[in-house]
């Protein structure tokens, strides 16, 4: 009785297998500091930090354990862990020298031997807003706002004699920070998108 075999498309293995041409980057979790807010995408958003599972860096132990690092960041320096499922923020790629962990919004593309990272900034900004909306990051204390406005105002004043693009950017930033002080502040356009 004749038998028809059907092959499957092979995955290229061995040394010829495609691997991301980036240096290894360790696994990381997210953390937030209540005082670390700034203009991200044209609005005041949290500037998150990372606890990287990188032995020897910032208190991470020989096995990549982050207990000391977390204790130091949380207990001594006032950070808070952002308890979010890794599937929501991190991806791992097979790199030529080891695993490369990237944020979910960084998408690598290899063109020849050059690697570019495309960043979906709008999606990342949405993620930040969601973290605040879900209570995983506490909203900014309103008392931080005057200091941010002062800084933006000082920069606008400082760049006034220089004028040009720098002064315009400083004025735009000032407007965006001031907009955050207004009740029901509408979302401003991303500075990157407006370039």
């Amino acid at each position, binding site marked *: 009785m004749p038998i028809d075999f059907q092959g499957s498309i092979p995955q290229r293995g061995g040394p010829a297998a495609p691997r991301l041409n980036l240096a290894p980057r360790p696994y990381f979790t997210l953390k937030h500091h209540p005082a670390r807010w700034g*203009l991200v995408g044209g609005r005041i958003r949290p500037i998150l930090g990372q606890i990287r599972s990188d032995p*020897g860096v*910032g*208190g991470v132990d020989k096995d990549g354990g982050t207990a000391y690092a977390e204790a130091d*960041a949380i207990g001594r*320096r006032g950070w808070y862990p952002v308890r979010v499922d890794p599937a929501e923020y991190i991806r791992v790629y097979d790199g030529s020298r080891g695993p490369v962990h990237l944020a979910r*919004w*960084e998408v690598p593309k290899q063109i020849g031997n050059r690697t570019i990272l495309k960043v979906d900034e709008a999606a990342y900004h949405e993620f930040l807003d969601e973290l605040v909306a879900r209570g995983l990051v506490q909203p900014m204390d309103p008392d931080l706002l005057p200091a941010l406005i002062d800084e933006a105002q000082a920069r606008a004043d400082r760049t006034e004699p220089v004028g*040009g693009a720098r002064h315009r950017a400083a004025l735009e930033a000032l407007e965006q920070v001031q907009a955050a002080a207004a009740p029901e502040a509408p979302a401003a356009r991303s500075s990157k998108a407006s370039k």
Partner: protein
Amino acid sequence: MASEIYYSGLGDLRYATILAGELGLLLADRASLWRNPAITFYGDARGSGSTVFDVPLAGLDGYDLMTSVLENASTSNTALTDASPAITVARQALQYQISDLANSTDSVGLTAERLAQSMVGSASMRFTEMVANVTDDFTATVGTSGADMTVDDFFDAQFALTQSSVPGPYLAMLYPVQLTDLQNSIRAEAGALQFMPATQEMLNIKGAGFQGMFNGVEIFASSHVPTANAGADSAGGMFGRGAIGYREMSVSVVPGHNGIIQATGPISVEFERDAAGALTKIVGNYFVGVAIIEDGRGVSIITDR
């Protein structure tokens, strides 16, 4: 005419290609902050009893001020402010393996000895990467996500340190794009401000990554500066001495360390022989930990990557 001797006819007497006599180096960032005085060294962990080292910090010598009291009033105790940030030493390693055939046919200097020598550079750059990976972790930040670094971001960082009474001199560690954006911004700056590029003499003292000085701050560029905001930005930093510290551990030579060729400092390099396979492993180990010691002495500079 006939019987001319052409190159094309000498296939058996000429090589298809030959190697230059000198081994060149592939492009890589070799700008190291190792032993830079801006980063505090906290000694050798060997024989200390732990990989974790607490740096004792106490609020003395002017941290607490005296206050005026009445002539006949009793004073009360002032609580001593202290902190003990930890540096955790961990192993960093690199291994090569070369066969006797590859080693013995070498004509350019790529030998087991050369691979062993290369370990120092690899350790040094790993140290720099570790330092870069803590500069994004300062609580204070300056810069605008998605916007190129300008001289204003630089001033904001310097002013933040000055306003927090951080003693200088300051060191700025920037991603190369941040540095070129800064230089571009300085071009438009009016007045007496000037970027002082590194001279050969300065490079000899401070190493290849030193780019120059601006407004009294040393600037160091490194491609190891990490990203921030999901890759949209770079997170460099500016800090004073005491912000970042490190600790190393020299290796105790143990029985079986027959192939060790370097074990007097924090880097140990040894050969491991596989006679049956005619192979030689070259293994470098470096035990080091880097951490932020005092958060208030530094500021992260987060601008477009």
